[in-house]
Each structure stands twice: as structure tokens, then as C-alpha cells.
């Protein structure tokens, strides 16, 4: 607790000192902010990549344990270095661009996938002052940036010029736009309770009242189901249903370009789990015996494990069931939740 606070304070002091020295040189402030933003971006990216390596290993371990087998065991203790070697292998794999593919769209699609996967972390509060930038439109920003990946999937699927890819891309677009609405409805209800869209403000509002999980049980249900569908996790992994669509939109991708989709997918999993922790479990706030950042990490991994557990327990649902669940259950419940929350906010 003390260590993290003083560390954050020290970095903050360094930042302020650097800024005053910078402006005394006569160079405009925004250049300094931009340089610092590069540092923040690299820091968050490193954090994400380490977590993705761990998450993939964790997923294989969880899947293994659920299916009563050990999972990866050979590289390092409990096979912890398995994904590291997998990632290295992907980097040195041959880079194949199919001859019939639309080359430039094919190359751009992974970039369009990974850019929002990192951009979205700008607003994530890791701790009281540990946040890249506390935008006052935080929730709106989250819902806007998270819908970018639909574009990437469509680009990847369409440019591959492959039947599996096209079908997978259309399916995933239909799925993601359908579940974006309940996701947005759940976010709005949280914003109504907190009276702000800034994620830092939402965590502070929960410190004043209580975890929004207790005030928003319906909203939480809608959020967690819609978020699971939004990041294409089982049981909503229809876009890449391997038993019917080969691999869906990324059938033609191989090597590191395919790895980029994979990294973005796990980064989004971590983000949605982190959002669930921030919006409904009080984010970084917790008893003082652990530093705020560790509280955030603990709660996030709680949700990561929950999503993996559900995914490896339930079978994949059919596409018509998927659409019915989204439009005929989650959206009406989300709307009712907003009306209820509105009445609650006015009464209290």
C-alpha cells in the first residue's frame, strides 16, 4: 500500500518537474504530453502482452483441469513458458498472403484489430492515480472504441476471399452489433447511478455507496453476458466456431498476423473482466492490506476465471438462440433495468 502510493507520487512529482523544465525551454506543453503518452502506451502494451502470455497459459490450464487433464506441462514449472515459445514460433513462421486476397485490406485488418485493443486501456483505472488519462466521457469512449473490432473482423473476413472467412465475418458482425446494444444499456445504467461517465468517478461513487453489483444485479447480468458475447468467448464463440467454420474470419491468417488477432482477443478479455471489476466490484478500492493495483488485478482475474469457467463448461449455442437471447431477453431486461435505475436515482 505505502510502497505503491509513494511510487505513484514519485512518478507524479517527476512528471510535474519534467513538465515545468520542458515549458521553461519554450517548447509547447503538448509535445511533452505526447512524449509521455508514448511512454504510457509502451508501459500499458508491455503490461498487456505479459498478461496475454499468462492468460493463454491460464486458459489452457483451466480447460485442461475442467477436462481432467493436466494441460501444458513441459516448458518451465507447470508449463508456464509454453505460450512464450508459441509466440516466438509465430514470429518466425512464414508470412502467407493468399494470392486472391485483397492485399492491403488483408494487411490492415490486424492493425485495425490491435489498435482499439490498446486504445481502450486509456481510461482503465488501475489505481487511484494509475490511469493513462481519465476522460470525462469514459463509458461512451469504451463503447465507441470496443465497436471498432467489428470493422476489423469484416475487413479480415471480406479481404481473405475465402468462403469460411466471409461467413464467419458476417456472423461475427451480426453477433457483435446485437450484443453491443445490451452492453451499452448496462453501461448507461452504471453511469446513471454514479452520475458521471468517468471511470475514476464511478470507482469513487462506489466507495461512497457500495459495490454497484449490489445496486445493479440486473445490469451486471446483462453486462457480463453481453461482454462475453462481445469478445467472442465461448459459449458465444460462433464467429470462429472451429467445428463448422474452420476458424471463421481468420481462416486465411497465419504466423504473426494471426497472432495479432489472438493477442487482441485476449487483451479484450482482460479489458472486459477489468471493466466488470471496475464498474461492479469497486475497481481498485479494497481493504488497505493490499495495494490498490493488486486489488484491481485480483478482481479482474476473478472475472477472467469466471468467463473461462463458463466458456469451458457450456456448449456453444446456435446462431438463432444467440440472436433470440440478445434481442428478446437482454435488450428488454436492459431497458427495464434503466427504467428501474431511473426511479431508484430519483427516489434516493
Amino acid at each position, binding site marked *: 500500500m505505502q510502497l505503491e502510493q509513494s511510487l505513484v507520487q514519485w512518478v507524479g512529482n517527476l512528471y510535474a518537474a519534467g513538465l515545468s523544465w520542458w515549458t521553461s525551454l519554450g517548447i509547447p*506543453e*503538448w509535445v511533452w504530453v505526447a512524449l509521455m*503518452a*508514448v511512454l504510457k*502506451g509502451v508501459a500499458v*502494451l508491455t503490461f498487456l502482452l505479459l498478461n496475454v502470455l499468462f492468460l493463454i497459459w491460464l486458459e489452457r490450464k483451466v480447460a485442461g483441469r475442467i477436462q481432467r487433464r493436466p494441460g501444458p506441462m513441459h516448458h518451465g514449472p507447470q508449463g508456464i513458458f509454453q505460450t512464450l515459445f508459441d509466440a516466438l514460433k509465430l*514470429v*518466425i*513462421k*512464414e*508470412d*502467407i*498472403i*493468399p*494470392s*486472391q486476397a485483397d492485399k492491403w485490406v488483408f494487411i490492415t485488418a*490486424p*492493425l485495425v484489430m*490491435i*489498435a*482499439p485493443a*490498446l*486504445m481502450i*486501456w*486509456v481510461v482503465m483505472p488501475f489505481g487511484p492515480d494509475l490511469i493513462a488519462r481519465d476522460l470525462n466521457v469514459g463509458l461512451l469512449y469504451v*463503447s465507441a472504441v470496443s465497436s471498432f473490432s467489428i470493422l476489423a473482423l469484416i475487413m479480415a473476413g471480406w479481404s*481473405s*476471399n*475465402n468462403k469460411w*472467412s*466471409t461467413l464467419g465475418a458476417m456472423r461475427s458482425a*451480426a453477433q457483435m*452489433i446485437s450484443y*453491443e*446494444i445490451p452492453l451499452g*444499456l448496462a453501461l*448507461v*445504467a452504471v*453511469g446513471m447511478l454514479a*452520475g*458521471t*461517465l468517468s471511470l475514476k468517478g464511478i470507482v469513487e461513487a462506489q466507495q461512497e455507496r457500495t459495490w454497484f453489483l449490489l445496486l445493479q444485479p440486473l445490469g451486471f447480468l446483462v453486462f457480463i453476458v453481453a461482454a462475453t458475447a462481445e469478445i467472442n468467448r465461448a459459449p458465444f464463440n460462433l464467429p470462429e466456431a472451429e467445428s463448422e467454420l474452420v476458424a471463421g474470419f481468420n481462416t*486465411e491468417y497465419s*504466423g*504473426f498476423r494471426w497472432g*495479432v488477432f489472438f493477442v487482441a482477443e485476449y487483451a479484450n478479455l482482460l479489458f472486459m473482466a477489468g471493466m466488470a471489476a471496475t464498474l461492479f466490484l469497486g475497481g481498485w478500492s479494497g481493504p488497505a492490506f493490499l495495494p490498490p493495483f493488486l486489488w484491481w488485478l485480483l478482481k479482474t482475474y476473478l472475472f477472467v476465471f469466471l468467463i473461462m469457467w463458463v466458456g469451458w463448461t457450456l456448449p456453444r449455442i446456435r*446462431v*438463432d438462440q444467440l*440472436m*433470440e437471447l440478445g*434481442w428478446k431477453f437482454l*435488450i*428488454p431486461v436492459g*431497458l427495464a433495468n*434503466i*427504467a428501474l435505475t*431511473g*426511479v431508484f*436515482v*430519483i427516489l434516493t
Partner: protein
Amino acid sequence: MVINYLEVGIFALVAVAFVAITLAIGSLLRPKNPYANKLAPYECGEIPVGDGQVRFHIRYYIFALVFLVFDVEIIFLYPWAVVLEQLGLFGLVEMLIFLGLLVVGLVYAWRKKVLRWV
């Protein structure tokens, strides 16, 4: 004001740079040995039949249209959510009327079997 959003653009650039640098490093290490069969679209080992960009069901367009209506509605909800406490009961009733109209639309689409996936 704009300075607050510098991170947004720069994070995107950092992500793109990461991919570009890793691909560049990989290009020094990886083999390059393309031939016609390897570059052909994957169709379970068969020679591909026709174009890959197949026609798809009209249902996708209908869902896209319904989505557009509801997504725009949610954009309207965000600013209202922030100021709800200041607006008080009047704001709530107004928004409930707005939501009610949309629910009528949802029920209409439901009854017309637009939401049924076939």
C-alpha cells in the same frame, strides 16, 4: 481540451508500431517459400469453387438496420444519464416516454418476426 485526447491517438500508433516492428524483425528470421497451391484460398484441401466473397442472407441487413436505431438511442441516453439527478422527475418521465416509443418499435419488430433468425 484536445490535449486530453492525445493518449488516444498515440496508443493507437504504439499498437501499430508494435505490429510493424515485430513483423520487420520476423522478416529477418522467417522462411519465404510461396508457391501457387500454398497461396490458394483454403477450402478443406479441395480446389476452390467460385469466388470467396459469397452472397449472404438478407437477414444480416435487417439486423443492421434495427441495430442502428437502438445504437443511436443509446447515444442519447449517455448525456441524460449524467444529468439525471439535476433534471429530477421531469427528466425521468421524459426519457421513459422516449424509451417507451422505442419499446413499441421493438415489439413491432418482434411481432413482425424481424427478430427471428432463419
